[in-house]
């Protein structure tokens, strides 16, 4: 099969604005709709738009029908409820804009601590009601399905390359160091390698700090034509290319290998369709729902050879800054990632990329950032890539 290299929307669609509520690793006392609505209102205002300008709506939770009514968006000509992570939402909204189904899409994602995430979330009766299937009988522990699968492949990664836990740990340390510079992040207390190594094991070989942190909070985006974006309040972040990569089989325990999964599709196609690749970017966002995902993205993207990402991150650790700066200049998840800003299914990664390209990243700003690469999602049915650039 020959991969198609069509990319007719390249640089014709833009993210015109991004906004966040910020994130907390505790029960916020708010609903998911409330969090999404706050981010949505902030992003519409930041772009200099009003509710009458929104004709497309795209998100997973709450459903678009609910958020439309909550915000009183009068008329939509398109809406979509794609699957997480959020590159799917951005890509689908961009495609809808480019195809002419609508012109200006509000994309949103509200992270919400489900009742099965933590003991304290379970104590919130409203969260119990809001968590589907909570009272149903659950299948037993004899499975690699869902998040457990990343631990399975972590065991495989250790087996194939003989790496140590420190290789996972440096991903967590970098995330935490970056979060200290991000007032919106949930986890900002400094972390040492000893803290990491002594943390509670959850699913061995992964510990508490190998897993992203369940949070309450929302992000929202305005996706519109590049032409329209140029007339709005902020400089546009152009969508250079987007890929949702998937191979068969893609179940957690049937996936062929760490070198034969959706990540390879994303890398092959994004590299071919984008105008730039890793040597030319200013900021990099590898997904970090679990630390082994980050190591494999770094390897599969071509920064280093398989099994060497931990060593690569150590080599590029900037002692003065106390974090990774690739070649002394490219930060990795400068917002703190899902591990320390909060588990946003990559909405945080994309929002930070947009803010970096708009010069709005505050203390984290990469000087004159012009190109960002996001490799989101994991190994199975959710690997995604997005390249963004300035005009």
């Amino acid at each position: 099969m020959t991969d198609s290299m069509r990319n007719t929307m390249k640089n014709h669609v833009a993210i015109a604005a991004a906004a966040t509520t910020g994130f907390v690793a505790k029960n916020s006392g708010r609903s998911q709709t409330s969090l999404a609505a706050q981010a949505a209102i902030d992003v519409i205002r930041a772009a200099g738009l009003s509710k009458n300008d929104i004709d497309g709506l795209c998100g997973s939770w709450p459903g678009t029908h609910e958020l439309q009514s909550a915000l009183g968006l009068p008329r939509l000509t398109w809406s979509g409820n794609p699957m997480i992570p959020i590159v799917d939402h951005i890509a689908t909204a961009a495609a809808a804009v480019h195809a002419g189904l609508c012109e200006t899409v509000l994309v949103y994602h509200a992270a919400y601590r489900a009742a099965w995430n933590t003991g304290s979330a379970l104590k919130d009766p409203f969260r119990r009601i809001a968590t589907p299937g909570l009272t149903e009988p659950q299948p037993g522990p004899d499975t690699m399905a869902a998040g457990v699968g990343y631990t399975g492949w972590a065991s495989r990664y250790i087996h194939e390359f003989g790496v140590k836990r420190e290789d996972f740990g440096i991903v967590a340390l970098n995330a935490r160091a970056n979060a200290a510079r991000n007032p919106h992040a949930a986890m900002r207390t400094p972390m040492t390698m000893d803290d990491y190594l002594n943390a509670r094991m959850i699913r061995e070989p992964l510990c508490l700090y190998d897993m992203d942190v369940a949070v309450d909070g929302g992000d929202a985006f305005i996706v519109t034509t590049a032409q329209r974006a140029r007339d709005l309040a902020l400089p546009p972040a152009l969508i250079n290319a987007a890929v949702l990569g998937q191979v068969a089989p893609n179940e957690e325990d049937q996936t062929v290998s760490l070198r034969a999964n959706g990540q390879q599709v994303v890398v092959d196609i994004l590299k071919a369709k984008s105008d730039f690749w890793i040597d030319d970017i200013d900021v990099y966002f590898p997904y970090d729902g679990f630390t082994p995902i980050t190591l494999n993205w770094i390897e599969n993207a071509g920064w280093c050879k398989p099994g060497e990402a931990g060593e690569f991150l150590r080599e590029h650790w900037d002692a003065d800054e106390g974090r990774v700066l690739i070649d002394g200049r490219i930060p990795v998840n400068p917002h703190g990632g899902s591990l320390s800003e909060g588990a946003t299914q990559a909405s945080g990664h994309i929002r930070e990329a947009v803010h970096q390209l708009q010069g709005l990243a505050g203390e984290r700003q990469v000087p004159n950032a012009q190109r960002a690469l996001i490799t989101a999602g994991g190994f199975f049915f959710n690997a995604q890539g997005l390249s963004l650039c300035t005009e």
Partner: protein
Amino acid sequence: MSITDEALVERFPGQPITHDNAEHYRGRLRRQLLMNRCAECGRWHAPPRPVCPECWSFDIEATPVQGDGTIFMAIFLHQGPPAPGVDYAVPYPVVTVELDEQPGLRFTSTVVGADNDAIRIGKRVRLGWIDRAGAPVPVFELTEVAL
């Protein structure tokens, strides 16, 4: 003698039983590990699907496997979902085993009768059975006990 769909679901509360995997669960009640095999091209696949992903034949047969294989992934749960007889005080092993029937054909379960230190990727295993909440569960045992 096959039990009804209604009775089958009652025997396996919480398991996501469908028209496509019900025969696998019926096999468990007979302590047989059934995996899907295509009657036309002979390829195995997992988890159970309604069609052969290789040749698109719908002539699929839930077929017993020997259950011998090699550990492909191995993890140890220090916490996890409630299950009868599982308290996680000793971390609970979960392994994905590559079965001898076909390269890449894998089944995930636990390992019984072995110290966690001995449960490692690359170790040979065979099929065993335990009972949980009155229903048989396919598990693995190490073929050679570690010295």
